[in-house]
């Protein structure tokens, strides 16, 4: 009976929503009870926007199978758009920030379409290179524009990013991207990763789906940028260089290309790890880069491979174990 219930999509949605709300309450309680100190609570924000960045890059790198190297460019577009919007309007914080995030996300998505249309005609390494080029150009243009503050950076952005808004943004990102992947459109995107020529031969409009995935990916990078802008309250174009794109890629690849769970886990660990290694501040970047090379040599598919965690499946297995029936060996069921 319980098993049949667990297979229902609507029940799974309810289950995940409850779990998400539960986690939020636990986090808030930990902060209120001072188990997490102020500094640790603030760390939740970078973890959050790194999760959004990694998950969104995973859509185009892991699920679409392309290799964009200009994710920081979209992040910077979103960050500046959101910051300029919130500086121009004067609304209550709880209205202004989400609006700014939407503005940032949409602007970045528009850039995604504009850049994606020409760039996605290329494949493999060339696509990587052209996105890298676009990312650098965006940075240089921001550096030379008047209204973005140029090299001095954009100052005086309201510090409006709270743990709650980051949490909501992460949930929305995960929901949109995971449902997108499980949908018909998602299967088209996956088919392009597996074999682009075969996908095209089967009548899938590959250009449309490539641009779609790329745009969604860029849009969420923009949302993350908006959160970043309202967290730091100052934007500096030099922080959106190629190294930032590389860092996001590192998170995605370490977590596992094509695993949202991996991206979330890797983003969390890789944001906390440098802080934990702060005692060895001098050595931390060395250790970090060494770790990356070592993981790549010994587990090139990333730590999680393509593993996906599903609360429904986990409970399903658990309930079977409780009744003494070992789960049959089969491919992990998708939450359908």
């Amino acid at each position, binding site marked *: 009976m319980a098993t049949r219930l667990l297979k229902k999509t609507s029940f799974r949605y309810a289950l995940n929503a409850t779990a998400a709300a539960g986690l939020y309450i636990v986090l808030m309680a930990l902060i209120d009870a001072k188990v997490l100190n102020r500094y640790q609570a603030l760390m939740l924000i970078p973890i959050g926007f790194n999760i959004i960045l990694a998950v969104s890059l995973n859509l185009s790198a892991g699920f679409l199978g392309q*290799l964009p190297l200009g994710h920081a460019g979209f992040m910077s577009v979103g960050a500046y758009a959101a910051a300029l919007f919130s500086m121009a309007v004067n609304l209550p914080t709880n209205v202004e920030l989400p609006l700014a995030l939407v503005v940032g996300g949409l602007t970045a998505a528009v850039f995604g379409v504009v850049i994606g249309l*020409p760039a996605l005609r290329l494949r493999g390494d060339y696509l990587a*290179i052209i996105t890298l*080029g676009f990312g650098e*150009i965006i940075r*240089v243009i921001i550096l030379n524009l008047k209204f973005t503050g140029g090299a001095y950076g954009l100052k005086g952005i309201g510090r409006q990013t709270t743990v709650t808004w980051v949490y909501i943004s992460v949930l929305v990102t995960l929901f949109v991207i995971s449902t997108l992947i499980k949908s018909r459109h998602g299967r088209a995107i996956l088919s392009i990763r597996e074999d682009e020529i075969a996908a095209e031969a089967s009548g899938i409009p590959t250009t449309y789906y490539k641009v779609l995935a790329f745009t969604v990916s860029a849009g969420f990078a923009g949302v993350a940028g908006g959160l970043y802008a309202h967290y730091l309250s100052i934007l500096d174009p030099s922080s959106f260089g190629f190294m930032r794109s590389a860092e996001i890629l590192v998170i995605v*690849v370490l977590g596992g290309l094509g695993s949202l769970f991996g991206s979330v886990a890797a983003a969390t660990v890789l944001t906390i790890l440098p802080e934990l290694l702060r005692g060895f501040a*001098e050595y931390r970047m060395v250790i970090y880069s060494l770790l990356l090379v070592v993981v790549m040599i010994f587990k090139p598919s990333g730590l999680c491979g393509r593993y996906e965690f599903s609360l429904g499946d986990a409970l399903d297995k658990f309930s079977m174990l409780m009744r003494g029936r070992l789960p049959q060996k089969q491919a992990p069921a998708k939450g359908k």
Partner: protein
Amino acid sequence: MTLVYLLINGLQIGSIYALVALGYSMVYGIVKLVNFAHGDIIMVGAYSTWYLMSRFSVPAWLAALASVAICSALGVLIEKIAYKPLRKSGRLSLLVTAIGVSLLLQNTMQLLFSANPRMFTNIFTGTVTIGERQFSSATTLTIGVSIFLMTGLTLLVKKTKIGKAMRTVSEDNETAQLMGVNVNNTISFTFALGSGLAAVGAVFYCCSYSQIQPTMGSMLGLKAFVAAVLGGIGSLPGAMTGGLCIGIAESLTKGYISSQLTDAVVFGILIFVLLIRPSGIFGRPRNEKV
């Protein structure tokens, strides 16, 4: 600044780009890897020259030669440790490893020599007068040595046995192996050669810009990489032409438009080329087989 000076300056920085681009191009041709650590090898070359000269007061020519040797060894070492185990796995993991190696080199250097920029005294002082114009000897030497090295490299690849091996491996790795080519040695040799050229580029770069820091390699490397793509990645004359084009474009932008926009122009050229002719000026278009 007159047009002639701008062009000469462009040729100078362009020949440095060309030297570095050759390394990118050769490595890409042979293992199909965009070696992101190549830019940081330049940085290692610059630091080793500087360190030998300032700490042990080694004469400049010896320090330069030593740093070429150090970089060649480092290039081979990186290939053996980091890239070789991944040759069979996907391109993406290879690329990420390259990014990892690049970060590792940068941060190790930062640890050893701190992030502060160091002053690099120009080795080649004095000027050379050609016709009515005076050029610094660093400029003339850079251009001259680069032309010499590029000619040498072309001859090496075209005429010698190891050059033939390099060409066969880049054509078809497995067939080359069946024909008795030692693929591993050839790849190591290519890495050594590319890294050595990068070290030469590093010495000349330092002479004209006089400042070195652990992150200097990334932008220089990226631009050299753009040069390699512009010329057609995998093609040697392409890397040279690409390097010179990028150098001249950069110098003209600095002279006539704005020095801040040079990076945008360089990457704009890259995008334009990729959209019009993705295989670059000299590259052969690759046909896809099902």
